[in-house]
């Protein structure tokens, strides 16, 4: 190939789609890792079904993995430049995610009559119209892969597991990358299975060479811009769930408190527990409980005994934990609850993303039960928000709910590796042994937080529990005391606002429109606002991570703008929350409840409409 055939691109979106068992998540990960290692910024988004292996070749079983690589990447991208479709069902269901003119690579061997019928095709899917709209590459992936398998003495069924490598080889060719990183991965991963390494390397290489021989590919080679604005430092790729787990581990090390996680498996939060379970050497005490309730209750018990106690869950699991959260509020124990939100209500869309647990996080308990709510806004910053949630919990003696979501949790991003010495100090509010003045609910003047006396400490024995207590510790049903304790618990949460930074606004200084977002939508919102400002539109943007309490300047910001639009992946829960606090500020909403993240295009379209209204 010659250099003039190469198309330079600021960014490129590749979507891998196939049957649930086709290894699409792995292909996507290998491509994003290789891209990151060769200097691209990246963001990924796995889009997979709830079924582990839905019937073969059906649309229900299609699993997707989108990778966005380029110079300056905020999100996993709207639509893709290259689509890999490993069967007719993937082709049929995923073509809508391809840009017009996109390169579409299909495994033509899978387009049998039976498979096409299963996907719902009654006639040839490759119409002239489609062939004109896309560059469709009909690669005989299965037959190539099986032939290689045969030459190595591998049966068809085993060889088929490597089909994804053929597709990946094509992608590496068309993105002008080498196979080195993936070879290294295969050698590491299958060190004990040399036959698997040989087969996969051969298939990967064959895919690459197949692409080289295709005339049409020569005009479809993309050179993707390397990240040029990235801060100097050491980087790695990380998913939100792993980043969350690591943030909690970091907080444990910094605070000197043992990390305890009591959890029950639930999609899409399970990986937080899976990750922490690996790290006993760092002192992580993970307990897989018999149910969600036992998960949070064991964490509350661990907190009483002095651990940095956490529980991880998703929507329905948070519902089950509600009563126990009230107990944590009442006993004023530090606790971190990670809620990796998914589509609801009830079982809803377990593998899809949404921001619809906000109301539940803020209000979902009996009684006046205030707690702190924070939200992460990128896969990588889950690390810092988990750390921060733990810091607030330990220093303010309160449960903290950290909201992430399926998009952040399963998606991945580049992560600039911090040094632990640069992480903020965490100072748990431990009582002093044999302090004659210790009272369970004595508070400090500044934070209004109580002290933490741990079983095993001499001279501090006391009782906590769900019943109302008086400040000295014993039970009390006195009406005045209940009013006082209720006020104190609220005041303690309110005062967290004294320890958080001011809310920031980006975009045009004299903007006509303020875009408000929170949590996991930051990528698409940032890009939409940035592009509009580059186009000369005056749009400002503020993104919330501290949800309860809000930063103290929130009202000052909201009152500055004539037009405000609150964007969230629910029916307006944050907008409603803001309205109760700032009724003087008129706010419109932009909502999406489809189990999918925002697309930059739809956001810009809506913001433009608002500007022109």
């Amino acid at each position, binding site marked *: 190939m010659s250099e003039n055939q190469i198309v330079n691109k600021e960014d490129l979106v590749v979507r891998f789609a196939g049957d649930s068992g086709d290894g699409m998540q792995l292909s996507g990960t290998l491509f994003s*890792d290789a891209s*990151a*290692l060769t*200097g691209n910024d990246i963001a990924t988004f796995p889009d997979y079904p709830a079924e582990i292996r839905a019937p073969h070749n059906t649309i229900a079983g299609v699993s997707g993995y989108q990778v966005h690589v380029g110079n300056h990447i905020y999100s996993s991208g709207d639509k893709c430049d290259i689509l890999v479709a490993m069967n007719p069902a993937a082709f049929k269901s995923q073509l809508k995610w391809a840009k017009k003119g996109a390169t579409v690579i299909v495994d033509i061997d899978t387009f049998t009559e039976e498979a096409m019928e299963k996907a719902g095709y009654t006639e040839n899917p490759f119409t002239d119209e489609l062939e004109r709209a896309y560059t469709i590459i009909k690669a005989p992936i299965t037959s190539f892969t099986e032939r290689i398998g045969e030459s190595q003495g591998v049966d068809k069924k085993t060889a088929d597991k490597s089909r994804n490598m053929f597709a990946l080889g094509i992608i590496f060719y068309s993105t002008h990358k080498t196979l080195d990183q993936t070879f290294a991965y295969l050698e590491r991963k299958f060190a004990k299975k040399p036959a698997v390494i040989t087969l996969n390397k051969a298939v990967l290489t064959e895919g690459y060479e197949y692409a080289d021989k295709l005339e049409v590919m020569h005009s479809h080679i993309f050179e993707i811009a390397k*990240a040029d604005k*990235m*801060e100097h*430092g*050491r*980087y*790695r*790729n990380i998913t939100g769930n792993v980043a969350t787990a*690591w943030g909690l*581990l970091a907080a444990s*090390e910094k605070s000197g408190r*043992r990390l*305890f996680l*009591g959890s029950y498996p639930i999609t899409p939060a399970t990986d937080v527990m899976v990750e922490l379970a690996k*790290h*006993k*050497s*760092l*002192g992580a*005490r993970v*307990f897989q*409980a*018999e*149910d969600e*309730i*036992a998960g949070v*209750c*064991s964490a*509350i*018990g*661990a*907190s*009483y*005994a*002095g*651990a940095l*106690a956490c529980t991880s869950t998703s929507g329905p699991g948070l519902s089950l934990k509600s009563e*126990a959260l*009230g*107990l944590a509020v009442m*006993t004023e124990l530090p606790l971190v609850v990670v809620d990796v939100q998914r589509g609801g209500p009830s079982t809803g869309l377990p593998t899809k993303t949404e921001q619809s647990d906000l109301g539940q996080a803020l209000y979902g308990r009996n009684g006046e039960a205030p707690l702190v709510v924070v939200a992460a806004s990128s896969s990588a910053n889950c690390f810092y928000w988990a750390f921060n949630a733990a810091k607030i919990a330990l220093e303010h003696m309160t449960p903290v709910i950290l909201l992430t979501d399926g998009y952040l949790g399963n998606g991945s991003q580049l992560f600039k590796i911090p*040094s*632990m010495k640069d992480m903020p100090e965490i100072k748990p509010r431990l009582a002093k042994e044999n302090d004659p003045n210790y009272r369970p609910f004595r508070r400090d003047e500044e934070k209004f937080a109580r002290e933490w006396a*741990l*079983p*095993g*400490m001499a*001279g*501090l*024995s*006391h*009782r*906590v*529990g*769900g019943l109302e207590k008086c400040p000295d510790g*014993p039970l009390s049903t006195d009406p005045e005391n209940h009013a006082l304790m209720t006020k104190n618990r609220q005041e303690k949460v309110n005062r967290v606002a004294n320890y958080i930074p001011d809310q920031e606004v980006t975009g045009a200084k004299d903007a006509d429109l303020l875009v408000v977002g929170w949590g996991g939508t930051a990528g698409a919102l940032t890009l939409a606002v940035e592009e509009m400002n580059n186009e000369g539109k005056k749009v400002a943007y503020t993104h919330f991570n501290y949800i309860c309490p809000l930063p103290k300047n929130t009202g000052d910001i909201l009152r500055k703008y004539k037009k405000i639009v609150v964007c969230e992946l629910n029916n307006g829960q944050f907008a409603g929350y803001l309205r109760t606090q700032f009724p003087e500020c008129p706010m419109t909403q932009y909502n999406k409840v489809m189990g999918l993240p925002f697309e930059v295009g739809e956001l810009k379209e809506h913001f433009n409409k608002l500007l022109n209204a």
Partner: protein
Amino acid sequence: MEKHFVPKADREYTKADFQSDQMVKWCPGCGDHAILAALLATFPKTGYKKENVCMVSGIGCSSRIPYYVDTYGFHSIHGRACAIATGVKLANPELSVWVNMGDGDSMAIGGNHLIHAVRRNQDLNITIFNNEIYGLTKGQYSPTTKFGQVTKTSPYGTIDYPFNPGELVMGAQGTFFARTLDCVPQLSTECMTRAAKHDGCSVVEVLQNCVIFNDKTHAAITDRAVRDDRTIVLEHGKPMLFGKNKEKGLRFNGRQLEVVTLGENGITLDDIMVHDETTEDTGIHMMLAHMGGDLPVALGVIRNVKKVSYTQLYEEQMDEQMANGKYKCMDDLLNSGDTWEV
């Protein structure tokens, strides 16, 4: 190698050391008073450091007990005491963790947590106050209420078949189960002391009388006039004898347990079963726990089996990984795997 995690006290305690300054608010005549007294007598016998004792309870009359004991205590929420206690012990294995629950707390709303705590064999000392009724909500039937009993929520008699806590423990592969009566505090203290010394999950069922809402529910076996004939106190290694003059005994006839009388039909001491609390197989312990009706209700330590506790297994894994694990600190982990310099 068995490990003991709870530190021993460097002085001897008395019952008074564990008495709290809170007013005990149970009804006069309630069986809970006697259970509290038995528990307070137990702590000094365990020899554990006082500040390392932690009481965890759920909701119900029995669950008020942490307030009446001068140790660390957690009066939690309905049914969840086992789950909370599990976290306490996991966070700090050096604590002697006690769980107190009623029959509704432990076997209705908290049934799931109970069986899983028992199954894991975590080192918890569980006491179930079984009065066969919901007392604090004023007299509704519980999972242990006798079949057919009229209560406020079963005005025509219950049609619920009751649980037997001992059978639940055996079914969950429990390693320690004892049963005692509130009105025999010495036996209660003995059972509780042995439970505390058992490495693993122990369950002590106390047949307790609710004087207001289910008075005399256990009277058919606890009344002085009938107690010797209606109950049998099992002792490890000793023949299973009962009756005022220990004239009756239990024999296994090949299919089931039966009551025989020494000297009648040629029955001698050799025919009487000898109690072995340590047999791993739950079969005979299940039969003993199940007794009632024509057979005497079994009291004392019915099962006490050695099996490595969850606590020990957990700490062994922690120690092994802390000593030999790949990552010694967060900086190691953060910089592990594929990383690159920009």
